[in-house]
């Protein structure tokens, strides 16, 4: 696809609407459906959709740099017209006064183990499910995959009372454990499918050379699965970073350990008209996932595909 695109001189598609007919390979899928629609108008529609989707985020981004009095009195789009009055005071206030710095740190403390633990546990299980024979293997795998669709809500009460009984409520460990368990079904599903697709002769020859399953796992399976592991890690990281429910319930009473989502949600509730705090806080909480997302986007997409589309 990208190869095909790069071959084409950059200007033809826009300058000559008839280009689609000249080169059949260049037809868009859309052109099969909408007759008489030139490639340039399809592009125009595509741009329109892209803009439509970006406007809300753009609005927040611009608002977060506007002085408080202006945010509350004029629309953010008026800020685009000179004279520009942008400021970073909102970010200063959020990071220093509202304790967002601590919340950012908490989010990291929660999200990093919350990403590594489930992937490790899932990789162990996926290895066994893919390459070992034991009674009930297929059924166990199916049950774990089926758990993907159990609503989280149903599990919260019993787990909460369990955590409270052993004094874990409000601790990071409670959230780590919960995220590990909740992330497992998807992770096991994805990794088992990936592991199973690895060539079996590699495993067999290692076995003949006398390598135990532990060594095969660490020296063959894991290095070969870096793409799948990376995509899963991104997926899990975003999920944990953006989670509100688990943090809300298992950390509920402990503001010192509250992650960004919880801190922002609290701001929404208590400062609902204090826009300058909200806008900057929301953007601070989005910053890291957006960086992760843009730098590793290709892995992320591939990861979803590996889990849902065969071949």
């Amino acid at each position, binding site marked *: 696809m990208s190869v095909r695109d790069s071959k084409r001189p950059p200007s033809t598609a826009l300058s000559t609407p008839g280009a689609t007919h000249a080169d059949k390979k260049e037809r868009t*899928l*859309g052109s099969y459906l909408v007759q008489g629609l030139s490639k340039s108008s399809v*592009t125009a529609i595509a741009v329109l959709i892209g803009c439509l989707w970006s406007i809300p985020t753009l609005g927040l981004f611009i608002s977060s740099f506007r002085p408080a009095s202006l945010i509350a009195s004029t629309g953010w789009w008026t800020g685009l017209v000179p004279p520009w009055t942008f400021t970073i005071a909102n970010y200063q206030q959020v990071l220093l006064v509202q304790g967002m710095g601590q919340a950012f740190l908490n989010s990291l403390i929660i999200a990093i183990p919350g990403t590594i633990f489930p992937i490790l546990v899932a990789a162990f299980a996926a290895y*066994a499910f893919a390459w070992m024979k034991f009674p009930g293997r297929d059924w166990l795998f199916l049950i774990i995959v089926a758990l993907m669709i159990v609503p989280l809500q149903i599990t919260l009460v019993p*787990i909460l009372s369990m955590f409270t009984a052993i004094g874990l409520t409000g601790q990071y460990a409670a959230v780590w454990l919960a995220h590990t368990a909740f992330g497992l079904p998807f992770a096991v599903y994805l990794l088992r499918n990936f592991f199973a697709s690895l060539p079996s002769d590699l495993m067999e020859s290692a076995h003949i050379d006398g390598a135990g399953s532990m060594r095969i796992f660490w020296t063959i399976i894991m290095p070969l699965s870096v793409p799948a592991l990376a995509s899963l890690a991104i997926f899990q990281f975003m999920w944990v970073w953006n989670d509100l429910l688990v943090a809300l319930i298992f950390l509920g009473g402990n503001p010192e350990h509250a992650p960004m989502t919880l801190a922002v*949600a609290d701001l929404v509730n208590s400062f609902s008209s204090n826009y300058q705090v909200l806008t900057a806080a929301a953007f601070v909480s989005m910053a890291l996932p957006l960086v992760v997302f843009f730098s590793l986007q290709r892995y992320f997409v591939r990861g979803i595909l590996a889990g*849902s589309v065969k071949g």
Partner: protein
Amino acid sequence: MAILAVQKTSASPRGRQRNISWLAWIWVGPALVLELVFFIYPVLNTVWLSFFNKTSTMYVGLRNYQRIFTDPSLLEVLRNNLIWLVLATVLTVGLGLLVAVLIDRVKIERVIKSALFLPMAISFVSASVIWRFVFVYQPANQPQIGLLNAILGLFGIGPQVWLLDTRFNTFAMIAVYVWMMTGFCMVILSAALKSIPDEILEAAKMDGAGRFTIFWRIMVPMISATLTVVTVTMVINILKIFDIVYVMTGGNYHSSVVGVEFYNQLFVFGNYGQAGALAVLLMMAVVPVMYFNIRQIRQQEKMR
């Protein structure tokens, strides 16, 4: 485990295999224990609690369930969830498919995809803040700072209180959800569409197939497996919807859904029985989907 250990001692020619079988339990052990503690036990426990009263001290039979289907406020919650389920699923999957078809092989496809996909990286909480600046309301005589009301103003229509007005609030929140999840559907469907060979589409065109025929008779059937996966995923996620509603309206103004109502019953009213019944209901709704999902996985396994 015990049986396996016994079998292991019997000196059979497949002794090595049995040895591996015993080892396998160590590898899957941590995952199984976690799933047992964090999923299986809580599910059974919640089902059990749902047959008891508020404080789990007295058995009340099916009364909690009966209340869900008779209490007007809970019926309203069910109705909202149904609106969510139908509308949000159709819109995310439908729009995702439409955009995937439309932007396929357009030069800036990648940029558009990123733009649509980006909201997935944003938490529901931040998304709700983002959308505040779309929905926010100011009295009619003041300048509107919300995008939607400002646009309405251009056409001379008075500002609306999008999130408080019971006519609009559920739909407004569905719009936010669609904004967040359409990109996910689009990316997956787009990958499937790319696997349709050009020759088939060309041949259909040569044979004089119209645009609807090409779309419904060729594109949709050829990606039906992927379409099912995407739809099932969306249905599951939408049934469980919590964050958007919790942050944007808190379930007030007649916009509550089962997930939020469950939370409120549990942590606001302390009604364990009613909360349990709601959660079980949610799970029951997912059972047909789960059946579907498992059947599909089995079919995939056969094809491997």
